[in-house]
């Protein structure tokens, strides 16, 4: 056997295949990893949606008995966790993966095997998070898992253990991906692409990656403290023994607020690409939109305690955080005006992608305004922990992030698959989803103001909540119907969609300059960038100037097994803590072996 690194024998031959089922396991190609992320996260999104539908059936009528308190508490906890960590974030990551190297004129990301690792850890971490359903109960303490309900004494089962271990594992995935995209964007842009000539989606990915890298360590600290409290008898959050439940809240929300910007900025980036493309005009105020994204990233660190207004921090702290929260509404609001100004006096082509982008703006306005109403701490004393907050959350995350992601799907599907999605079905999807979403989440504002708390598995009649709840349930099923339309469209178009060609939308950015789907190496020749909206510039503005003649041999990173095995090892090491230490030991050894082998494996061989 060939000897690797001078010490370990090579156990498996280095994979070389780029085609076939097995190649998906060992791929390090950013485009395939993007597809893996997209398909996996969409499946988790549907799972979280089903969890929502069950909850909505339970709450459709007062005093309902479809599911009991215990099950319901698991449902809302896992719905939120799955939507945030296994839905929206990896859906955004699927776009980062596929699109960023294409937009900056690169052949792949900076660390292709690390990229694969991020995906596999996400998959295994997502399974770990959900394992509670199979072992007597998933986490049921809400997605923010406030101490001290999460103490072993009050939550004895495995559910909260899977919460802690699952999120720790998923954090590794997010951090790895964030580092990868930071380095890729900083180091691998095509010649001539200065930072202020980058596509806006690339900019938002950069800010998001910085937020990920700085925010995840904070929740990691909290999770490790919770892990130690639950497994090793420490007292970080135990009030009787000198600990403080509020410590968890501060740590969680210091992460949690930047996290919501992690959830929305990619969608804002997508919308900032789509509106100019279909209006045939540049993004209005590009530097300001970039700057406001950066400002939101910074200021997002100064508002966390607006999630804690009712905790009793006192009027001074509450006033300060009210003010910082109101201030952050300014760069957010400014973007909306920039988007409308982009469309103004444009020549707007009404495609499904554009519908979703406009829908994003329309719904984000509502979510943003309801957010302003809770920025006022005193007003929030009534709104906190009610359905009014649930309404806000869903307008910004569903009306915002999810609509933005669907806009991206309709926009980039032709680039990824080579075929166009059906426009008529796309618009049907849009209208059903738009109507369903407003029907589902609009009435929640009223129910909340009428005193309906959140996270309750049932409610009595006579509170005035019955009608709003029934409307929400109907809206949820309309959303589900719209998703069936989408799935049909997505599958059907793979086989029979119109061929897209390189540039079906008369696009502005570099991904449209190469074939659909892109070849393995992306660009035959690395382009030289002369302006923002580089491809539009080449098509309509630049005359003369030949592309650089780059007839070098093209080197591509080779597939590898090690990311898969390292991820599996990490997941077993973590999950084993909930079952049997032997599993953890096996996982740890596997992970160490995989990482060691990876370290001595060259990027490409022969």
């Amino acid at each position: 056997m060939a000897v690797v690194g001078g010490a370990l024998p090579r156990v498996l031959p280095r994979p070389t295949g780029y085609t076939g089922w097995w190649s998906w396991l060992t791929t390090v190609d950013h485009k395939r990893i993007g597809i893996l992320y997209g398909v996996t996260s969409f499946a988790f999104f549907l799972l979280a949606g089903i969890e929502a539908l069950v909850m909505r059936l339970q709450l459709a009528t007062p005093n309902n008995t479809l599911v009991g308190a215990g099950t319901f508490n698991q449902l809302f906890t896992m719905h939120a966790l799955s939507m945030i960590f296994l839905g929206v974030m990896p859906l955004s990551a699927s776009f980062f993966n596929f699109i960023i190297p294409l937009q900056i004129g690169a052949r792949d990301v900076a660390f292709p095997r690390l990229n694969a690792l991020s995906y596999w850890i996400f998959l295994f971490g997502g399974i770990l998070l959900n394992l509670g359903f199979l072992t007597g109960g998933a986490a049921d303490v809400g997605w923010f898992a406030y101490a001290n309900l999460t103490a072993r004494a009050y939550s004895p089962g495995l559910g909260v253990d899977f919460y802690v271990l699952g999120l720790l594992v998923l954090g590794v995935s997010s951090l790895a991906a964030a580092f990868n995209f930071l380095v890729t964007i900083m180091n691998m842009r095509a010649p001539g692409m200065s930072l202020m000539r980058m596509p806006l989606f690339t900019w938002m990915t950069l800010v998001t990656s910085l937020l990920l890298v700085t925010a995840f360590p904070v929740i990691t600290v909290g999770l490790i403290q919770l892990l130690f409290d639950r497994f090793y008898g420490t007292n970080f959050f135990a009030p009787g023994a000198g600990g403080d439940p509020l410590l968890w809240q501060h740590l969680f929300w210091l992460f949690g607020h930047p996290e919501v910007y992690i959830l929305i900025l990619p969608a804002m980036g997508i919308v900032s690409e789509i509106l100019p493309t279909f209006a045939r005009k540049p993004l209005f105020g590009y530097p300001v939109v970039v700057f406001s994204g950066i400002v939101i990233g910074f200021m997002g660190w100064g508002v966390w305690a607006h999630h804690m207004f009712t905790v009793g921090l006192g009027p001074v702290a509450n006033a300060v955080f009210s003010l910082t929260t109101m201030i952050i509404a300014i760069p957010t609001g400014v973007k909306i005006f920039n988007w409308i100004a982009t469309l103004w006096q444009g020549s707007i082509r009404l495609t499904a992608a554009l519908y979703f982008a406009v829908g994003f703006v329309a719904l984000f306005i509502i979510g943003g305004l309801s957010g302003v109403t809770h920025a006022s701490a005193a007003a929030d004393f009534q709104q906190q922990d009610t359905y009014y907050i649930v309404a806000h959350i869903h307008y910004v995350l569903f009306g915002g992030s999810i609509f933005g992601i669907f806009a991206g799907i309709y926009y980039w599907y032709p680039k990824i698959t080579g075929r166009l999605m059906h426009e008529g079905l796309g618009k049907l999807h849009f209208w059903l989803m738009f109507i369903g979403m407003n029907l589902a989440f609009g009435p929640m504002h009223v129910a909340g103001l009428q005193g309906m708390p959140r996270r309750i598995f049932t409610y009595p009649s006579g509170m005035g909540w019955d009608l709003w709840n029934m409307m929400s349930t109907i809206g949820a099923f309309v959303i589900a119907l719209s998703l069936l339309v989408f799935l049909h469209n997505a599958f059907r178009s793979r086989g029979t969609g119109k061929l897209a060609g390189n540039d079906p939308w008369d696009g502005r950015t570099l991904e449209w300059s190469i074939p659909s789907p892109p070849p393995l190496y992306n660009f035959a020749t690395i382009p030289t960038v002369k302006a923002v909206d580089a491809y539009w510039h080449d098509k309509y503005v630049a005359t003369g100037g030949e592309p650089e003649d780059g007839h070098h041999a093209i080197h591509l990173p080779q597939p590898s097994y090690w990311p898969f095995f390292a991820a599996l090892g990490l997941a077993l090491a973590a999950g084993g803590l909930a079952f049997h230490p032997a599993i953890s030991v096996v996982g740890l050894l596997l992970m160490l072996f995989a990482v060691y082998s990876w370290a001595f494996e060259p990027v490409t061989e022969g």
Partner: protein
Amino acid sequence: MRGIFSGLAAALLVACSADLPQNTLAPAGENARIISDLFAWIFWWALGVFVVVEALLVYTVIRFRRRSEQALPPQTHGHTQLEIAWTIAPAIVLALIAVPTVQALGQLSEPPSQQPLQVEVIAHQWWWEFHYPELGVVTANELHVPVGTVVTTRLKSADVLHSFWIPRLAGKLDIIPGRTNTMWFNANEAGVYLGQCAELCGLSHALMKFRVIAQSNEEFEGWVRDQKAVPPAPTGPAASGAQLFVSPQKLCATCHTVAGTEAKAQVGPNLTHVGSRTTIAAGVLENTPENMARWLRDPVAVKPGSKMPKLPLSEQDVSALVGYLQSLR
């Protein structure tokens, strides 16, 4: 100005009805009124912005639809003055919201009275313990207050996070184990005001309710007298229930107190005057003999996770106990 706004809000919003027991927009106390006035002010600004911006968006998408594939529209990159203007305008609106917010926070942090009525609240999974230290009253799940009197509450938890919320009377305040949070409220009119825990606290979070009953001064003083009175030893049918209650086999005295008997435990609610309460099981069931029997037969079926287990009670035991407990007024 804010009075006009709140008046308009009350008129226009469907949700303003005082028939809705937990309606935050139908305030019946000073604390809730301060908040609802502020909310009305903010809401109208938000509605105004909503109408203008959405109308602009819809107009733009319709008006500038593509007419010709050939002509490129003007490739405008920006307009500095416009961008400055639309940065300053929201800032002004936010300032108009910020000032009354800070004012309200100040008002809400200080009870508007030199001599408020003091109440200690200890939140448990899943019921509310109330003490009136100045008056020597201990009760559970039902808080009586005189109309108009400012009440200051000191909030503590016996176990996990909870939140004390009476929507028509006051904004909520969370209850953190290891800390004491204080808030104030009053009720402007006599009536029954429903409250509910507003922080996830385990299985029966949805079923942890309480009631605030605002009464005239005379009625309140009568209630205090009744609550402080020690119930006489029962005669007649209630006597057998009394015996069962304190007998070790039936376990009632392991957790509950009835003043004047050997039952002095403080794990569960004080039952000295349980017959006088309007609800049982922390606001979940109307206080009727049937419901009390239902609770005694299987508390866990009524309240998932209830710390009161299913006890070894025969049907006769249940009837006797119900008779006794209903007599404790």
